[in-house]
C-alpha cells in the first residue's frame, strides 16, 4: 500500500499537496539567435516525442496485423486484421477482467480515500501529545518495502479463508495509506481554522467537522488521492499474482500475463492476440489519463517539491 513494489519508479511520491505555482518564465530571447534556439528545442522535443510515443504506435499497429506480419515493423498494417480483437474478446474473458479491475480499483480507491482523509484530518485538526512522533512514524512507514510484509499478509488472508478472493487486493486500504495521509493532511492544514471554530460553536461534533466541512472543501485533493490509487490498483501485478487463482477473478494485468503465457512465449505464439490484448489493457489507462490527467500529473508534480 505504501511503497508498492510493483509501481514504476516514483509513482508513489512523497509530496506536499500544494499547488505548483509556476515561476514566471524568463523573458524569451528575441532575434535570430532566439529563433534558431527555439527550432533546435522543438526539434529535440520532436525526437524525444517519437521515442516515447512510437513504441505505443508500434503496439497498436502490431495488434492489427495478421500473425506473420506482427514483427515486420511496418507502420501501417496490410491487410488490417481486426479479427485479432474479436479473437481476444471471444476466447478470453476480457470483459470480465475489465469489470474486475474496475470493481477492485473502485473499492481500493474509495477505501483509501476515505480512511486516509479520516486519519489526515486527525493529524491536521487536533493537538495532542505525541502527534509529531506518530506522524513521523506515518512518514517512515512509507519507506517500508512491501516485500517485508508480503508473506505474513498472505498467511493472514489464507487463515481467514480469503486468500483466493479479490478482498486482499483492496481491504488493506481501509486503514489508510501513508502517502495519501500526508497529502491530505497538507491540504486540510490549509483550510481556514475559523470555519471549524464557528461550526464548533454551532454545536457540530468532530466527525461533523470532518464530514460536512473538511471533505467538501477538499475535493481536488480527494480527487488526486482517488485517481492515483485507482491507477495504482489498476496496474498492480504482484498482488493479483499472489492472490488470484481463478481465471474469472483476474484483473487486467493478471489476465494479460496469462494471455502472454497462453498465447505468447509459453504457449501458442499467437503474438497478434497478445498484442491486441495488450492494447485493451493499456487503453483504459489512457482514457483515464485523458479524463483525469490533470490530477495524475498534479499528484506527481507536487511530489518532491518539499521535504
Amino acid at each position: 500500500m505504501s511503497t508498492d513494489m510493483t509501481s514504476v519508479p516514483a509513482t508513489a511520491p512523497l509530496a506536499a499537496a500544494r499547488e505548483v505555482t509556476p515561476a514566471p518564465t524568463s523573458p524569451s530571447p528575441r532575434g535570430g539567435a532566439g529563433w534558431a534556439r527555439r527550432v533546435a528545442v522543438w526539434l529535440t522535443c520532436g525526437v524525444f516525442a517519437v521515442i516515447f510515443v512510437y513504441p505505443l504506435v508500434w503496439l497498436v499497429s502490431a495488434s492489427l496485423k495478421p500473425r506473420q506480419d506482427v514483427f515486420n515493423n511496418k507502420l501501417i498494417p496490410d491487410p488490417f486484421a481486426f479479427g485479432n480483437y474479436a479473437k481476444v474478446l471471444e476466447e478470453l474473458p476480457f470483459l470480465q477482467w475489465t469489470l474486475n479491475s474496475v470493481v477492485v480499483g473502485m473499492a481500493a480507491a474509495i477505501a483509501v480515500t476515505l480512511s486516509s482523509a479520516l486519519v489526515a484530518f486527525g493529524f491536521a485538526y487536533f493537538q495532542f501529545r505525541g502527534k509529531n512522533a506518530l506522524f513521523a512514524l506515518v512518514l517512515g512507514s512509507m519507506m517500508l518495502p512491501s516485500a517485508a510484509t508480503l508473506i505474513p499478509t498472505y498467511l493472514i488472508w489464507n487463515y481467514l479463508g480469503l486468500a483466493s478472493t479479490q478482498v486482499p487486493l483492496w481491504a488493506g486500504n481501509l486503514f489508510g495509506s501513508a502517502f495519501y495521509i500526508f497529502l491530505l493532511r497538507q491540504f486540510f492544514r490549509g483550510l481556514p481554522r475559523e470555519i471549524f471554530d464557528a461550526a464548533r460553536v454551532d454545536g457540530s461534533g468532530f466527525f461533523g467537522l470532518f464530514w460536512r466541512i473538511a471533505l467538501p472543501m477538499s475535493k481536488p485533493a480527494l480527487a488526486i488521492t482517488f485517481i492515483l490509487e485507482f491507477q495504482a490498483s489498476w496496474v498492480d501485478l504482484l498482488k493479483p499474482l499472489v492472490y488470484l487463482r481463478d481465471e474469472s477473478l483476474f484483473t487486467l494485468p493478471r489476465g494479460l500475463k496469462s494471455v502472454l503465457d497462453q498465447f505468447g512465449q509459453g504457449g501458442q505464439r499467437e503474438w497478434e492476440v497478445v498484442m491486441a490484448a495488450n492494447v485493451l489493457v493499456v487503453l483504459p489507462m489512457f482514457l483515464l489519463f485523458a479524463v483525469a490527467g490533470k490530477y495524475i500529473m498534479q499528484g506527481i508534480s507536487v511530489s518532491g517539491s518539499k521535504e
Partner: protein
Amino acid sequence: MRARSLRVLGCVAAISLATAACGGVGDDTAGGDGSEVSFGGETTGGDGKAGGSDNEINVTGSMTTLGFSVEDEIAKARVAEVKQAYPDLDLKVTSGAFDEQQFLSAVAAGKPPSAVYLPRSELGTYAAKGALLPLDDCIEAQGIDMSLYRESAVSQVTYDGQIYGIPEFNSVRLVLANSNALQDAGLSPDDIDVSDWDGVMAASKQLYQTGGSGIQRIGFDPKIPEFFPLWVAAAGGELVSEDGQTAYLDSPEAVEALTYTVSLVDANGGWSDFKTFRDTWDFFGDNNQFVADQLGAFPMEDWYLDVLADVSPNAPVTAMPFKDREGNLLTYATGQAWSVPKGSNNPTAACAFAATMTSTDAWMAAAEASKADRKKSGGAYLGTWTANKEADERIFAEVYEPSGIESLDQAVKVLQSLQDSAIVDPPSPAAAEVKKAWEDAVLRALQGDQSPEEALQQAQKEATEAIADAQ
C-alpha cells in the same frame, strides 16, 4: 499508558500471526490420516441400495475437481461417462490447469478439492508432503486393474510403495525432420539417426543455414533444457534414481549429454542467436518452421502432430523414433494423474470419478468423440494416447483409421513403436526443485556462464540439498 498498550497490541499481532503460520495440515482435523478414509469399499453393506453385486458403490453427494478443464471432446465424453454412471453425483469442475499455489493454499485452508488432476512428475512431492491420500483402498474398492496401465506411468504415481494417483494421458517424444530440407542438403532420413551423435552433428551442420538477418535454418535442435533427461538416458544415464531419492545430475553420462547438446546448439549459431531465431517461429501456425523451412529436425512431443494435422497437414515432415546411443528405441513420457487430496470431502466419489475417467470404456468413448470432432473440423484424427494400455490397443484397433496423409500415418506408426520404451521422471519428494536445478544448469551451460561439468555440479548440489530438505 499508550506506549504500553501499543506494545501489548504489537505482541498480540505478532503472536496471532505466528500461530496462523504455525498451523499446518498435520494439525488439521479435516480428513484425518489415511486409515480412516473410506473410498466406499466397505460401506456398501450398510446402505439399503447394496444389492447382490459386491462392486456396487453408492456414489452421491457433491465433489469438486481442480486442475482439469472440460474443453475438448476427449474431456467432455469422459465426464459424460461419469455423469451417466453416477447420476446422483453433483460434480463441479473448476477449470484451469493445475496450479500448485491454488492447490496448496486450498489444502492448507482445509478446503481441498475432492479430486485433483496433476502432472505425474509432481505427484511424488505432494505424496511426500502428506497432501495426498494413498489410493490402495480406492483401487481395491473400484476394482481397478493397475496392470492395465503402462508400467512407466504407474512407477511415477507410486511413492514409497503406495499408489497415489491413477494415470491419465501419456505423451511421448519422437524426432520430426523436415524432408524438404533434408533433400535440399542431399541427406536422407537415415542420416538423422540419433543413436549416432557424430552423424547428427554432421547432418546438422549441413542443414544449418544463415543469411541476411542471421540464422535462416536451424540444423538439429536438441530441445534442451526440456528434453535433457532424454539425452541423458540416451547416453546410458539417469538424472534421478528410480525411487526419486538420489540425484545423479553430474554423472559422466549427464555431462556427456550436456556437452554434446550444447555443442549442437553452438554449431547452430550459439544459444543467444539460436533462441532469438527460434522465438520468431510461427510454431502453431500454418507458416510453422517446417513450412517456412526454418528447421532441419528436432525431437518433439507427440501432440505436435495434431497441430501439424490441423494447420499444415501437408508440411514436409518425416517422423522417426528417438534412440539411445546403442540404437535401442527410447522416448521420454509425461502425463497427468488423478489423485485424492488429504481432507477430500468425498473420497468415495473422487475415487469412482478417477476410476471412470481412466477406464477403457471412457477412453473409447472419448476417442470416438474426438475422431468425430476432427472429422467435422476437417483435421485428421491421429489417435488418442493414454496410460491405459488396454484402451490404447482398442483405440488403435477399433477407432483409429489411417488418415491417408502419408507423413502423418507414418508418424503414428513411429509413436506406436515407442510407447513401451519410455523413461519418465521418477517420483521425487523434490521434483520441482530437482527439475529447476538441471534446467538452470543446462541454461547456464548454453549461455556459456559455466562449463557443463561446473553447471551440473552446482545442480547436483542443489538437487541433493532439496531432496534432503524434503525428507
